[in-house]
């Protein structure tokens, strides 16, 4: 007689462990069955209402009867700080990595967006030219990246000959490059090797592509389209920088990422345009506060949904135990990289918006100190609390925005506050909880679980 399997034990469906249907702990909330479009409308209705409210309310600040230019700037900068902090929350809180480079990614976004406006005299009202410029830049970068990848690949392959050969080759390569460039600069011509021609060669590729593309693009279009191009490019640039940083530190100790982002932050701060503020054309009359507020709202909602989605839970699993996560089918490196890239992409968007808020852009905003201050804001607000981080970012950003002269003293106070908070209240001001009821997060999880089924 065959033993009957009790009903309470689920049958093995042969799925991978990560795909097993796990009964949610919040069984008292009944999943609803609606048409997908109706579900979409219900899920995003509140967000749409909030955007409409911001569009209408933002007119008071951005419109012709603007309250004051300073207030508009201050509120826009606070929205930008909220975006930066919420992006870092995904990295530090959800993913458990420590990055000091959020302000560096912000700087990359800002300078990439400001680059054509400042150096090429391209105006926002000519999105075609902007697009041509960035396409030319992308082609140039791709050419440089292919060359670099071939060289680095050959160096890595050389280990098959002798184990320490890559070290020797890399040292010789760097010295060769430096001596060649120095000698070429000293003599005033380009006599020797290919490295001396790299800079002018890349510039020639860029100029040729830009010239070839420019006539084929429309002369003028909406200013919003130009701004959208800036935002997308800044987002991609910051995300790509984070991707490179994450690739280089993948599978290594957390100190690697910490130190690499530290070096990146200082490098961005000190080297962009030789420490000179980027001179930008005059303000374009964009409704900038409304734009910043909507972008901040969308960033918060996006991070909230990611945190409470399958991806967010995978990131949390990796944070708690990377080995255990790997055994249930989650790729730890991919999740860590995804968190860093998403956080940096949000910072890049903030940087693109920053170019239109206040002029000029000063590299001092993007150094190591602002990066650590953002970390302090996330810690004080709560590493596991989105609402706490938003409140802390809004409240703690007021001082440097309103009194720029007191910035350094305020930063020192925040650092002390961070130390005290880590000792006395490590979960932050709201103790890791949210301002909204927990059922909201659970509903998000249920919807996602329905969609997966």
């Amino acid at each position: 007689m065959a033993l009957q399997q009790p009903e309470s034990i689920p049958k093995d469906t042969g799925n991978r462990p990560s795909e097993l249907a796990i009964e949610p702990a919040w069984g008292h909330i009944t999943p609803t069955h609606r048409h997908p479009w109706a579900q979409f409308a219900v899920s995003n209705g509140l967000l749409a209402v909030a955007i409409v409210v911001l569009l209408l309310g933002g007119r008071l600040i951005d419109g012709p009867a603007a309250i004051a230019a300073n207030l508009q700037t201050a509120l826009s900068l606070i929205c930008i700080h909220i975006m930066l902090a919420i992006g870092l929350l995904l990295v530090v809180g959800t993913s458990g990595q420590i990055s000091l480079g959020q302000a560096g990614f912000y700087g990359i976004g800002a300078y990439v967006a400001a680059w054509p406006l400042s150096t090429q005299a391209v105006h926002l009202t000519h999105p075609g030219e902007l697009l041509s410029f960035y396409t030319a830049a992308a082609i140039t970068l791709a050419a440089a990246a292919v060359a670099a990848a071939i060289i680095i690949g050959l160096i890595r392959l050389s280990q098959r000959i002798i184990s320490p050969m890559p070290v020797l080759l890399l040292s010789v390569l760097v010295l060769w490059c430096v001596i060649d460039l120095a000698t070429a600069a000293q003599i005033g011509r380009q006599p020797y090797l290919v490295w001396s021609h790299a800079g002018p060669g890349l510039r020639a590729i860029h100029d040729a592509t830009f010239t070839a593309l420019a006539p084929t693009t429309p002369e003028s279009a909406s200013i919003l389209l130009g701004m959208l191009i800036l935002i997308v490019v800044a987002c991609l640039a910051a995300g790509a920088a984070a991707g490179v940083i994450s690739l280089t530190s993948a599978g290594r100790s957390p100190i690697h990422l910490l130190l690499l982002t530290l070096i990146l932050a200082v490098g961005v701060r000190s080297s962009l345009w030789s420490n000179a503020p980027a001179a930008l054309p005059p303000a374009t009359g964009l409704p900038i506060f409304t734009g910043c507020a909507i972008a901040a709202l969308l960033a918060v909602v996006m991070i909230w949904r990611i945190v409470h989605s399958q991806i967010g839970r995978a990131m949390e699993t990796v944070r708690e135990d990377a080995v255990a996560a790997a055994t249930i089918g989650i790729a730890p490196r991919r999740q860590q990289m995804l968190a860093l890239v998403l956080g940096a992409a949000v910072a890049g968007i903030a940087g693109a918006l920053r170019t239109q808020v206040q002029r000029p852009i000063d590299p001092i905003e993007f150094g190591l100190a602002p990066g650590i201050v953002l970390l302090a804001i996330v810690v004080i607000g709560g590493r596991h609390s989105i609402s706490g981080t938003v409140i802390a970012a809004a409240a703690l950003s007021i001082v440097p925005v309103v009194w720029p002269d007191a910035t350094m003293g305020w930063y020192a106070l925040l650092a002390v506050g961070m130390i005290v908070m880590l000792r006395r209240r490590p979960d932050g001001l709201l103790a890791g909880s949210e301002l909204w009821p927990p059922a909201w997060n659970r509903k998000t999880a249920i919807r996602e679980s329905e969609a997966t089924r």
Partner: protein
Amino acid sequence: MNELLVRAVDSLAAGAACALVAGGIALALSVRRPINLSMLVAPGAAMLIGGSISGICTSPPGWGIILLAVLGSIACCCGIWWIIDQGVDRPMRKAAAPAPLLTAAAVLLIGLIVIERAARLWPMDLSDLASRRAAPATGSLDVPLVGPLHQVTWLIAAATLGGLVLVLTRTRFGLAMRAVGYRPQTAGLLGINVERMIAVAVVIAAALAALGGLLYGMHQGALNGLVLLRPGLISAAAVVAAGPHRPWAVVATALGLGTIESYAAMALPAGAAMRDAILVIIAVVAVLARPADRCGDGVATT
């Protein structure tokens, strides 16, 4: 060619100073986990303290004043970092995973602000202390290529790092310190005072970083926020490139990075303005090529 050699000699001296700083940071890293990030600003603090001491004294300073400045800055740095270790880091040693690193980041921020403020309020120039360096690149044949300051830098770097090797590998004290670095709990069970060992390691690391920083500053002359931070940054890049668990590879990498960075800054057309970008590029290329993985254990720790 003479100019090339003068730059190379200067760069090699700067690289040796960076190797000293990296030796200190690698020691702190190997014994005290996680890394004491504020150690990155110890060289800058030493430059400011040394500059203050020499500024009080008569100019141009003799070897006695230079010795006083060096010893004074080392003593001050040792005291400051001992207080930081005991007051801030020690209570966080047994805290949950990200808290010690976050605390270290906060202390680094305070250190950055303090040295940047100090450099702005009291602008300093260590060129008086560095007056015993060989003359700059004038092409004159009557100036020796290798000046006394170069010799002193190389000698101090070699003697200090060599002495550190001897202490760590040939004495019971060094054995105890390495044991604390490998397995603190086991070392404690064997009767080693772990906390005291960590404190001693931090003090030695601060002394090395201060000595290296002061020597580096003498080769730079005028001090500003970036010069004060640069030896620490080069050491950080060396740790990233060589791997945090290979102290001697870190020292060698810092020697190479410091030399190349210093040479590039002097020789390239826009080198002075792009110093830190050069450092970032070198660090990223070095990590992409992963030379550390080719030289032995490439153990990944998660």
